[in-house]
């Protein structure tokens, strides 16, 4: 792995990913540096199962969630509206992922990976399953768990 070459090729994509996660340009630049530091530090653990871009995105997600000390607040009504809309299959645009992100800060690692693929990478369930080596039913179940967890969080705090 030539880390400088990777940075030339993937640096901006990683930065953009980090910016979408944190919504702060300066923090996104710091996270980008951290992602490539980790990639360099753990280069032996990259064995080419995923594309370099997919691997770097996974590092970006971890770096971002590692940087969060305290989960950001969520508005309960907002969570309930989101959960209901998802259950009813209301068609929405990607991009407004802020709430998803705030909820994800409270979710376990395996659910996080799936939800990020769904909302940030805009992948369908079949592709997510293929990418993570899971079956589609498991992916569906974990996305369901994410919603249930969000709903529980909202109702429990009421």
């Amino acid at each position, binding site marked *: 792995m030539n880390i400088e070459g990777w940075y030339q090729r993937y640096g901006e994509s990683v930065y953009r990913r980090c910016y979408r996660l944190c919504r702060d340009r300066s923090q996104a630049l710091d996270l980008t540096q951290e992602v490539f530091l980790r990639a*360099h530090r*753990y280069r032996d653990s990259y064995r080419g199962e995923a594309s370099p*871009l997919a691997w770097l995105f996974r*590092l970006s997600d971890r770096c971002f969630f590692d940087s969060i000390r305290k989960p950001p607040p969520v508005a309960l009504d907002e969570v309930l509206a989101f959960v209901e809309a998802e*259950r009813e299959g209301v068609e929405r645009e990607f991009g407004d992922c802020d709430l998803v992100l705030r909820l994800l800060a409270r979710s376990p690692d395996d659910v996080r990976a799936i939800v990020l693929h769904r909302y940030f990478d805009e992948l369908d*369930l079949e592709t997510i399953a293929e990418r993570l080596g899971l079956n589609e039913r498991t992916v569906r179940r974990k996305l369901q768990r994410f919603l249930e967890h969000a709903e529980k969080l909202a109702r429990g705090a009421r």
Partner: protein
Amino acid sequence: MRPRIRGRFAAFPDFELEAYLCEELPAERRAELERAIAADAGLRTYLADRARTRSEFAAAHPLRLELHDARARTTWLSPRRWLFAAGVAAPALVLALFWSNGSFTATPAGTGAPDSAPFARDAIRIKGSGLAAELYVKRGQRVFRPRPDEALKAGDRVRLSVEAARSGYLSLLARDERGAVSVYYDRLPVQAGRFTAPDSLLLDASPGDELWLVIVASEPRPADQYAHAFAAGHIPDATHVLLTLHKEKP
């Protein structure tokens, strides 16, 4: 959850657009995308803008791998470092006053760095099992005691410090996520009181958390005798402390 959310460019998810820009998109999908680019002005503009910002990014924000080391070298100058030092010094001062008055300490005691930790062999009494253990980490030039949930990094040097009510023999075993057990210290003689292990352990890049079992036994029992039970998930019947070592995930 039903897959009913639309991407900005419906037929091509964001990840594929990134893969295209990074020249990683498989040939068949690439051909489809290029046909879509020809037909969709919005997509064309978006990708052209992205191609421009990509080419400028690395030059505008060069990669600085050396920053990490430089940061570690200069942390002693930072206000955070001084606050940390004050935080360490204050409880140490209180403990020193207790010792000087013949009072006892509770676990965990003493918060100074291992090399400068007070040593009060005769005055130590420890609550509970009679054994307390903590870790110190050296990262670059910085020494700190990690928070319970703090992830350690490959290259960190970890040093064990124990406080035992009675003299005995220290063994340190580690079990990784696959259940493999390593013996780091085997029957190291320790006196009652505070003891800092002679060497630091260098963390490698192998992934996954580790569970550390610190035993101070009254008899010099070989650590291998504990290893089998520990590998099977059992905790040996000896005075012990368990520490979880969280490691940064790649």
